[in-house]
């Protein structure tokens, strides 16, 4: 039986080798042309440390129509300090966003809101991209919509109720910055009825995530017996540690 198998197999070996080679080369070509998401993400990581080969690979994949590559490339380019790169990055983000990549919409909205080399800060242009991001499943966009509605801007009067609405969307999705800001608006009754208990709940949610300002808010509240928190030596000592420590632990912005 074993003998038979061996005899049968032998003539096939060159063929199998050739077939394997053909498949392998084909696969390589296919993978280079159609990299999978994990590959693009890895290029994104390496592009982040300015690895030229990775940036070039992303550019090729983005040119070939990969939304993910287009976003990853844009994300790397907008972090650079020269106008040409940032504008190039903006274009790639826009391309991905227009193709329906919600994460790219969010990045583009943030870029337009904050501005950058060669890109003027323009909250009203940012708004539709942020709305698209939220619709596409990136609730982080709601945080920035909240920030926009908190401001008086040329062409927009401050709308604290809308700010509260959007901040709550982002806070509910778990973003610590949004939880902290929403807590602030609840505390001062800005766009919403004042509600110390809800404010504290949001501060606590943010503090759990090592949000430095939320931890500081709770610390100051402990010192003042405020927000329904009672002055206890142990709780205060713990809160001092958290406030100090979380300064180097800031949760990522949405």
């Amino acid at each position, binding site marked *: 039986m074993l003998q038979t198998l061996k005899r049968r197999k032998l003539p096939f070996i060159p063929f199998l080798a050739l077939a394997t080679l053909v498949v392998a080369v084909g696969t390589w070509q296919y993978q280079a042309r159609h990299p999978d998401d994990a590959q693009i993400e890895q290029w994104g990581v390496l592009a982040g*440390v300015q690895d030229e080969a990775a940036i070039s690979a992303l550019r090729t994949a983005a040119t070939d129509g990969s939304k993910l590559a287009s976003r990853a490339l844009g994300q790397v380019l907008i972090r650079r300090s020269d106008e040409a790169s940032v504008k190039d990055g903006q274009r790639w983000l826009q391309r991905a966003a227009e193709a329906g990549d919600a994460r790219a919409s969010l990045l583009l909205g943030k870029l337009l809101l904050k501005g950058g080399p060669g890109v003027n800060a323009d909250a009203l242009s940012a708004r539709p991209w942020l709305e698209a991001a939220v619709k596409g499943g990136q609730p982080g966009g709601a945080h920035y919509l909240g920030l926009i509605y908190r401001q008086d801007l040329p062409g927009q009067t401050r709308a604290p109720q809308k700010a509260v609405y959007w901040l709550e969307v982002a806070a509910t999705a778990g973003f610590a910055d949004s939880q902290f800001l929403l807590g602030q608006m609840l505390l001062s009754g800005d766009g919403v009825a004042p509600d110390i208990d809800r404010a504290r709940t949001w501060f606590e949610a943010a503090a759990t995530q090592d949000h430095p*300002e939320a931890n500081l808010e709770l610390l*100051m509240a402990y*010192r*003042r017996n405020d927000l329904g928190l009672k002055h206890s030596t142990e709780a205060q*000592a713990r809160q*001092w540690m958290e406030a100090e420590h979380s*300064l180097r632990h800031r949760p990522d912005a949405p």
Partner: protein
Amino acid sequence: MFRGLVVKNRLVDSLRNASLPLAIVVMVLGGCGGSNDSATPATPVNTKSTLALLETTDLHTNVMSYDYFKLAEDKSLGFERVATLINAARAEFPNNLLLDNGDTIQGTALSDYQASVSPVPCTQTLAMYKVMNLMKFDGGGIGNHEFNYGLPFLNQVTGSKFDVDGVTNGATPCAGPSFPQALANVYSAKTKAPLFSPYQIITKNVTATAPDGRTVSASVKVGIIGFTPPTIMSWDKRWLDGKVYTQGVVETATKFIPEMRSKGADLVVVISHGGLDNSTYDPTMENGSWHLSKVPGIDAMVIGHSHQIFPDAASTVTQFSLPGVDKTKGTVNGVPTVMSNYWGKHLGVIKLDLVYDGSKWNVDSTGTRVEARSTQNADKSYVAVEPSIALAVATEHAATIQYVKTPIGTTDFNMSTYFADVGEVSAIEIVNQAQADYVSTYVAANLPQYKTLPVLSISAPFKSGFAGGNDYTDVASGNVAINNAADLYLYPNTVYAVRVQGSDIKNWLETAAKRFNQIDPNLTTDQALISTFPGYNFDMFTSPDLKYEIDVTQALNSRIKNLTYKGVAIDPTAYFIVATNNYRGSGGGNFPGIDSTKVIYASPDANRDVLISYIKGLKTLTFAKNGSDRSWRFTKVTTKGRVTFKSAPNKLSLATTAGLTNISSINNSDGSANNLADYAIDLSK
């Protein structure tokens, strides 16, 4: 078109190259290697042993039970006490492996002293590692805070040889831990190789019981693999950007654990510096330990970073109530897991029963026990110190105390907040000067687009009597030491710079003016000036360029009068940079328009540290230059009754000396037990 493949292959090659030194380490640690040697050849099938994994985490250089800012003992923390728990656990479990989870070398004045003030030389071991060597740690991971002082420092004190831009290596590594360290998910951008050895295989000689009841010696190979939060890339961006990159913890574990097994690891122990988070996995997520636990092949996890205790049946912490987490038994998705709090308050213990199957050791999970042991006894007292620890770091400890006490400058005036509510700025102007100086320097060097904008600074009296007469900043004239800086700048904040318009400044001050009740000039009875609005939100400028009045007879949001910049009414559309702190810059206090959209610089430096270095630079503080520039005063109004406020008793002379001649003392005690007295202010003067 094949560029991507080149990248991928280069990565693989460099990982291969990186594993060469690792292989040497493995051979040295593991003897001859080879999976069949994991127990001595004589070890019979079904031989049993017990191995305890002991964990410290987030020690943060709390070597001694001591608070350097209070200059006082604090028995609730310190490695010298957890060392006593280590000794006890070792007596209980003679077969043990002592592991540290990371966040080890940063966090106290001692660590700052050895990193920045008097940097530890290459030939000397960092105090923290010195005592860990003394306690014979078997292995360690790397936390996020290990990166806080930058890569060259980390390279030096861990005795590493990083091949990373900006790090230079001598011929031989510097003094460091005598135990192996592992970190698998941080890579050098230059070489694409892991920064540290991703894993280590430790051969542990153990006593065991053969099936016939004989006590035999055997050896167990324990593979340790370390992970740090990928979020180090944003937290320590200034040190790490472009130099290293991270990989997701799950991908990394999936890659290396089979390799560890193939190199003979009987057990795989994950040292993960991260808590538990079951939200959708992402390679950059901060707390990856929940997802890590699902990677096949892990026998136990020692985790950290969250400063929490696990297991703890009574815990109300969200992360310990996630699906798959048993906070009583101490398992995460079935993997025995321990987190031992922080600052040496607890020791983690995972007891594993092992059985030898003829080729390797396996865990008999029925014998697994997990606990976090506290240094605090049931009667609230604390375990005794292990005396050898203090002896080992006596020099470093004394030097740190000396450093904290050393004068950083002198002042010719008393800096206090007793009368800050009524316009006295002796403890505030120096903070504003330090912040403005720091931000101006940064903007000039790094933000050329803003270099023409005026830089102002704003701060508040953080200690303003809420807790009584002792709750005020009070630094006597004479020497100013490091620990006085905590009195001048109470809270842990970092400097932020916001770009705002004149109209924003007006609104900012209107909000700050909520500190005052609305005063009715016609009331003949006493009126309290100060509202419940917190003192820490009473922001004020102290600049000769900016002047304003606060009219307390007006309703909220219409109190700021005669706001001028350089002598002319402020232009509401003109731009300014204002130095402040992270709390305000992030929207704390809900000041209108002041939030992250206005931030042009979120510095990593603490306001308190900025203040310390500013005072060091000035050396001599004078009332004329650093304590008397009042930007604001109350709008003059004659009131029929008294306008009153509280401060500590017998301090009137401070107000008078500072030029506030319209203050008078009503009594020396307000009748409460809070060491407060009543004062009056004559608003007509």
